[in-house]
């Protein structure tokens, strides 16, 4: 496949790079891991297969060979040869097809999974692109015009396509997009550095995502929060979803490309199951923090994982059956 127009920031991502944070090598990985896994799931692929994380304005893709694709996450009105195609559903496309993204409707990132195995760079156990060090994914960088991504294996689906330029598969995921604005959190290790009043403000006010919002973190605008402790923290680990209080009294939420360690007070931590919702927010969106318990947060992780695994098994079976019947 070939990139025929460059997008603003389209990279290869998977579930992230773990095991090397002690060397300062950060995790990276998809901003909306639920949608990233869903795209793989619907094609019956392994949950951790590398996908393209696409921002708007998006790249334009030319499929030189026929394949099956699935797009999830934000709705950028995807089209194949100018015909709208659905999200959350596998679509077979003929050779010489052009995939475009017309308009940003909802969300801020979409995920493109390809049925064929692609020739990509695995670095330190992950395909996720590490932009800082120029490693992993596709040449360690975002996709540029004229990039060619090779498929490892061929796929003959001409009987299935039967002269049509694309075919939408019969199965899909329903009601998978969660656009809530109330994001659940657990208290951070420096939560008690905030006075009771400030803790209330944190939970009662709406915070706006500023223009300083990217894969590394979202800076928020809201009431200035004061810290009653001025002790300097020495650096220790931070993670995706850590909410830090900056010296100016504003908050930053660390996202997928966060540093491995930091020294600002960690007042809260977004629950893992809600990181994907946050990953679809964009500048000017407003959010509110809602406290929850560790027990509830864990339950949500487990049920999300269960949902994806069950769907993956079902889709893998359906895919085999469908391809067998049509080829």
């Amino acid at each position, binding site marked *: 496949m070939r990139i025929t127009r460059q997008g603003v920031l389209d990279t290869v991502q998977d579930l992230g790079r*773990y*095991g090397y*944070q*002690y*060397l*300062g*090598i*950060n*995790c990276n990985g998809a901003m909306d891991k639920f949608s990233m896994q869903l795209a793989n799931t619907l094609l019956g692929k392994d949950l951790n297969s590398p996908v393209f994380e696409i921002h708007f304005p998006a790249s334009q893709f030319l499929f030189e060979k026929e394949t099956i694709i699935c797009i999830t996450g934000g709705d950028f009105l995807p089209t194949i040869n100018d015909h709208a195609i659905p999200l959350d559903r596998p679509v077979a496309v003929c050779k010489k097809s052009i995939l475009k993204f017309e308009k940003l409707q909802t969300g801020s990132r979409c995920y493109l999974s390809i049925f064929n195995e692609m020739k990509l760079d695995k*670095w*330190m156990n992950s395909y996720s692109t*590490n932009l*800082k*060090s*120029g*490693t992993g994914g596709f040449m*360690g960088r975002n996709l540029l015009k004229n990039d060619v991504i090779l498929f490892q294996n061929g796929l003959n689906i001409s009987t299935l396509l039967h002269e049509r330029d694309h075919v939408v598969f019969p199965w899909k995921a329903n009601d998978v997009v969660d656009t809530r604005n109330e994001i659940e959190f*657990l208290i*951070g*290790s420096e939560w008690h550095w905030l006075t009771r009043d400030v803790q209330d403000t944190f939970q009662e006010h709406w915070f706006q995502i500023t223009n300083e919002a990217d894969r590394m973190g979202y800076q928020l605008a809201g009431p200035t929060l004061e810290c009653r402790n001025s*002790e300097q*923290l*020495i*650096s*220790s*680990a*931070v*993670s995706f*979803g*850590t909410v830090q209080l900056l010296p100016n009294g504003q908050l930053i939420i660390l996202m997928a490309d966060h*540093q*491995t*360690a930091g020294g600002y007070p*960690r007042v809260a*931590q*977004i*629950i*893992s199951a809600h990181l994907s919702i946050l990953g679809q927010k964009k500048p000017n969106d407003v959010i509110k923090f809602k406290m929850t318990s*560790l*027990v509830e*947060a*864990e339950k949500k*992780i*487990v049920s999300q*994982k*269960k949902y994806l695994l069950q769907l993956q098994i079902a889709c893998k079976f359906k895919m085999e059956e469908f391809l067998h019947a049509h080829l």
Partner: protein
Amino acid sequence: MNAYQPYSIFPLGDSALTIDFGNIISKDINKKVLQLFHHLKAVADKNIVDLVPAYSSLTVYYDVAFLHHSEKTAFDAITEILEEWLSRTLNLPEKQNKHFDIPVCYSKKFGIDMNHLSEQNYLTIEEIIQIHTSKIYKVYMLGFLPGFTYMGEVDHRISIERKPVPVKVPPGAVGIAGRQTGIYPLESPGGWQIIGRTPTKVFRKENKCPVLFYPGDDVKFHSISEDEFENYQAGRT
């Protein structure tokens, strides 16, 4: 882990926890952190996803779905496993730390903040170089960037606050922030006061081990001229 070191464990969200030995920089505590880190790394418990040692803490990322059972939270389950290790006297073989002699060119061309440090701390540039090169530094931890080292502690005479606004620094830039010193592995915005640059590559993405320094290593700097710097870069590093 011979002598008992008081610690506290707190959750870092729902998928990681931090074992904290206090908000202090100490060689002894850092050594304990690294002993525990190497031990857990060697044990290779399937429940553990990642281990992140810092100055005086060890953060453990764990697999919630794998550990979760109805009667107990994953957090409680992993805490029990870790407390078991923490309560034992781990007679660990001393991890063989490496020692590095790193060349640094402290010239005006590379030490862009040398004048600032000289004025702030009433030292001549020669004195700063003499002080910075006279000590063996401990690599306490890595973070911020792939391969970025937090080393310490520099003599209090050359200690200086970081910059209010980060500026772009080249790979190999050697900086000071408070009592810490470190080398930027990649071009990056940086807030540390830059006193020189090393021609030694501390990060090579093509290597199997892309990072030169590991936590616990010892580093000593020695001063080189601009000509020597160019020679290093041209061929032999």
